[in-house]
């Protein structure tokens, strides 16, 4: 019988550090959300004080950063792009060949709101402000949202250019 040992997935923790002294141990607050960093870079050091422990573990994004990853991915992904979930993603690009006006700005706002509700339950949309910029062939979107777990608000600026490019 083959065995899958999930212990390999556990990163070394501060309490296991050879340099840590139990009496001096500091219980750090554990993150609520943990995601991989997109470029899969190696975490150079973890640990406490002046005794960092070199780890070969992957760098991770925690909590708010993790949620921001998710939001970015939602708006940077077109429907059908995600291999095993073709429904995932925003359809903002569908508007980019339409006239830049207030009507389509409203439609874009609705789409953003729907996408976030559907794919990112960890945030609540508070306000979406869309400014059509016909001279630059783009919309400027200001998304104000709240991280439900952390009771914090944040702003995401999105520039949706005519031609399909979305800058976040």
């Amino acid at each position, binding site marked *: 019988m*083959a065995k899958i040992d999930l212990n390999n997935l556990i990163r070394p923790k501060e309490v296991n550090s050879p340099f840590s002294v139990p009496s001096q141990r500091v219980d750090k607050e554990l993150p609520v959300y943990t995601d*991989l960093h997109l470029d899969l870079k190696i975490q150079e050091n973890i640990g406490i004080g002046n005794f960092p422990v070199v780890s070969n573990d992957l760098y991770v994004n925690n909590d708010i950063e993790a949620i921001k990853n998710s939001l970015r991915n939602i708006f940077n992904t077109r429907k059908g792009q995600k291999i095993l979930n073709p429904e995932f993603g925003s359809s903002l690009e569908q508007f980019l060949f339409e006239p830049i006006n207030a009507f389509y700005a409203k439609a874009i706002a609705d789409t953003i709101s729907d996408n976030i509700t559907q794919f990112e339950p960890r945030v609540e949309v508070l306000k979406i402000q869309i400014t059509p910029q016909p001279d630059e062939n783009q919309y400027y979107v200001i998304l104000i949202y709240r991280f439900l777990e952390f009771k914090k608000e944040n702003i995401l600026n999105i520039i949706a250019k005519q031609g399909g490019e979305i800058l976040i």
Partner: protein
Amino acid sequence: MNKEVSYNKNSYITFDATSIRDLIINRLNQSKIFTDQNYQGSNMSAFLDVISYSFSTLLYYLNKTSSESLFSETQIYENINRLVKILNYNPVGRLGQSVPFRLIARANLPIGNYVIPRFTYMNVGGTNYSFNKDIQFYKSESGEIEITDLENKNLLYQGLFQEYPTYNAIGIENETVYLSLLESVYIDHFNIFIFVKESGSDSWVEWERVPETFLYGPNENIFQVRFNENKRYEIKFGDDINGKKLKEGDQIAIYYLNIDKDAVNIGPNALTNAKLTTYNSLRYSEIFDDVFIEILGNVLTQQNIQFVRLNNDYPSTFYTDEESVDNIKNNSAKNFRSQYRLVTSTDYETYIKTNFSNLITDVKVLNNDDYLRKHIKYLYNIGLNEPQKDDKILLNQIKFADSCNFNNLYVYHVPKSELQNYLAPAQKELVVNGLRNNKTLTSEIVPMDPVYIYLDFYLTASGQDATPNDLDQCFLVITKLPNSRRANSAILADIENLIKNTFNRKTNKLGQLIDIYQLSTSILNIESVARVQTYRKDTDTYIEGVSLLLWNYYYPLADSEVYTQNIQLEDFKYPIFNNIGNISSRIKINEPSGTIKVADF
């Protein structure tokens, strides 16, 4: 949290992209290191999708491009066995040795009718042999006599019959009993017997084994045996549509012949001093009283069975392993096509090869027309104007049937045992009986023995007829490459192996193509061989390549011919290389020098 999850080695094949992704997510959730695998927008989710999809794609190509070489022999057997079940093909399991026998009744046994009860056995030098049916005979004279009626018409089977614990039926349709025995227990495929005592009945009834239940009606006492993918036996009963259904509480008694695959073969006359022992058990006695009551004659007991002794003129056949994967592939399709009805010659040949693989190495079936055009014509061609009057004809085992021959099917078979040139009458009868239920109604099976054609290196002397009498003058001459440092003995061994493999008794076929070109080419391909010639010493002549004499052993003057080109034997002829064990004495190896005169052709 359980961090160690056990899976079978090949569990990966059960996953597709979505299920492997879900499994990883599940495991990550259990480990509680990462959380965002649960959110579609996370980087983790994207990575998991890519990994899972790649896995699925690779698995797809693995399945598409995988070949049997990636699987173990057992896995391949399992797969093919399961596959052919769809075609209603039952692969043949192991077959033990068998031996035809003669029966001699001693003087102590009074005149009368007697029966040797089935499952009676004898021990021959540590190996047991059993009867699989009741042997009935009549002793007509006082004194010791041989029972000629039985002469070589029955077979003894290697092994001892064993009782399987009584099975109580549940009463479902197509109820199946799995014989759960140790892996080391080998069962003779054709020696499984079933007796059923129906609930509410006081007596045991023997049920008949059939190849397929669907061929039978609702009230027939039949069962089907299947050698399954785990190399175990399944016994399937009917459903009251095809074959009678077992009722709840029916008792099933199963007897199987437990064979020993490593048992030593016995030679002729080995049975002479062996003592017979009757089979004995409480259940068997009960069954015997119910089932065998109709038999006429005195059943021999342990006391008076000693007044009977056996002898054997033929050696025992060999143990045969279960049908190989290649054979199953080949036979299952043919079996499906014929649906247990034997019509074409291929149907007959496949059926015989499958079911009598322990007796026969090759078989050909000819109809009467082919028989007349080929075999009888051959006999006339070699000068036998009245073949039935020729005393040597018996050596070629020609059967002259009655006046109505047009429906005869002539079955030529070559025995598997190299110690045996022809099948014993009991073995022929076994084949004929085996075909009886499936053959075309109007066909009559006539078992035939092949005409053995001997081969040897030969070159005709100018102006003389070819004859095997001067074989000792002819040799195969090999010339080595000029700079070769290879030992002559090594070249000789290679050629010897090549010829032994080419004319192997196990792989030779009736109606074989004697491929002289291929033989010459293969010899030339041997390292350090520059030239192959057939040489005649008394006339000092040679010919390039291999030249063979083919002759009928019993009519060497009438049928001997030299061939330097490929020759296709007729279907009733079987090739045997003359004195192949001593082939090295027929080959000479020359250093690259000297000249030899060219023969005239």
